């Protein structure tokens, strides 16, 4: 997966794609699929989207959009409000600062970076959830969710890259 230089001129439609994708994934995360146990370990699709687009199209997924989508996730999922935007903003800032390192690297390195981001977000969400609820939360669901999230990244990343290539044409 080769990174393309960021094109300064884009149509409004192209500019909206990363945000729209992330929003759709946020909504899809809460859709009941009828798979036993899925609701508790739903992969963090929003994190995948934000990681990917921060590396390849950071100007199309600004902090404000990350914040708003994170807040929507908290409102939809009944989680502690403010925790998801907090974690996602930190991910975006960290990835942005390391962007030069990631751009142009081959996929395993990007995947490794994503796994690290997932671990960080999971620990953060677990910690905030515990503070908010006033007790130590059972980490098992969190661990499963993190593993599933890291495992699903290649698939979604491939989808994003197809979309991105389609846009560049």
């Amino acid at each position, binding site marked *: 997966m080769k990174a393309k*230089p*960021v094109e*300064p001129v884009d149509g409004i439609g192209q500019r909206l794609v990363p945000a729209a994708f992330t929003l759709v994934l946020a*909504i899809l*995360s*809460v*859709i*009941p*699929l*009828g*798979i*036993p*146990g*899925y*609701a*508790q*370990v*739903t992969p*963090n699709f929003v994190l995948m989207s934000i990681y990917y687009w921060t590396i390849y199209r*950071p*100007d199309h997924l*600004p*902090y*404000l959009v*990350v*914040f708003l989508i994170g*807040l*929507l*996730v908290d*409102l*939809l*999922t*009944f*989680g*502690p*409000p*403010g*925790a998801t*935007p*907090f974690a996602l*903003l*930190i991910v*975006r*800032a960290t990835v*942005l*600062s390391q*962007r030069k390192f990631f751009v142009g690297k081959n996929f395993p390195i990007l995947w490794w970076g994503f796994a690290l981001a997932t671990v960080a977000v999971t620990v953060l*969400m*677990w910690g*905030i*959830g515990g503070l*908010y*609820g006033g*007790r130590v*939360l*059972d980490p098992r*669901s*969190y661990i*499963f*969710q993190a593993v599933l999230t890291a495992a699903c990244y290649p698939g979604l990343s491939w989808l994003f890259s197809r979309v991105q290539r389609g846009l560049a044409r």
Partner: protein
Amino acid sequence: MAVKSRSAPVSHLVAPLKSAAQRFAYSALVLLSVAIMVIGRADGTLVEHVRTKTNDMLAPVLEAVTQPVAAVTAVAGHVRALAELYRENERLKTENTALLQWQQVARRLDNENSGLRTLLNYQPEGSTWFITGRVIGTSGGAYSRNLLINRGTLDSVAKGQAVASGTGLVGRVTEVGDRAARVLMITDLNSRIPVAIDGNHDRAILAGDNTDRPQLAYVGPHTKINIGDRIVTSGDGGVFPPGMPVGTIASVDGGLIRVEPFADLSRIEFLRVVDFGLAGVLPPEAVPQPKAPKRAKGDPGKSEAGPTP
């Protein structure tokens, strides 16, 4: 961060400004997130209000997205059912024979019961009312165990009402908007349900801990508990009526008793919101009096409301 490679003279000026603005936006939004966390912890009702409004707005979208998913799940279910048709039929025949015997017993008991009630001049409990809703959202994460359903105040759903599937108690309504309501499942960390062990009437509290099998807490010291014992609601606290089926004792490990819910909580598509006319321990303003449903009920199969015997 300067990402533009073209070196137009303007970009020399614009890039640092843009970078500064971004850094400011980042700091401001992180602070805002922290502020929201603190406010949310301190003032639950404000968050609840915003959450209810958001869920209300998104309910039609979620409902629309859920339907094709439900259709696919149904098709998969049909295929599975076809494959197991023969075995299923045999099982059902056996079960039917057993149930017919139970039906006889139930009829006899019902007769006897009504006879005894007449003798005692017993006042029947307040009329119950229910409405069926579709699950349009799940918790989508590890933090909590809840469901979003497509029924709200327009359908006379109110906070505190019990939610059950065909087989047993699922939870209770904790947040309600016009078109959507949030159901806190009995497995959630914050769920506490007063229950009794069926048969001997020993009381306990069913406490969720975000696992599939909630714990049985505050069990009396002399209570005898066996695996397989039925757990029903005790009616203490006045939120649920006594005797609603909840689950069976699944394991007893030292002091840790776990209950397997009757309802398959991970695969609920439709559930029933039941109002028993019990105000319970919730503050009066949190429990609006049920009124006749305002929304037109023209979609058979999805909605049914009316008094149950």
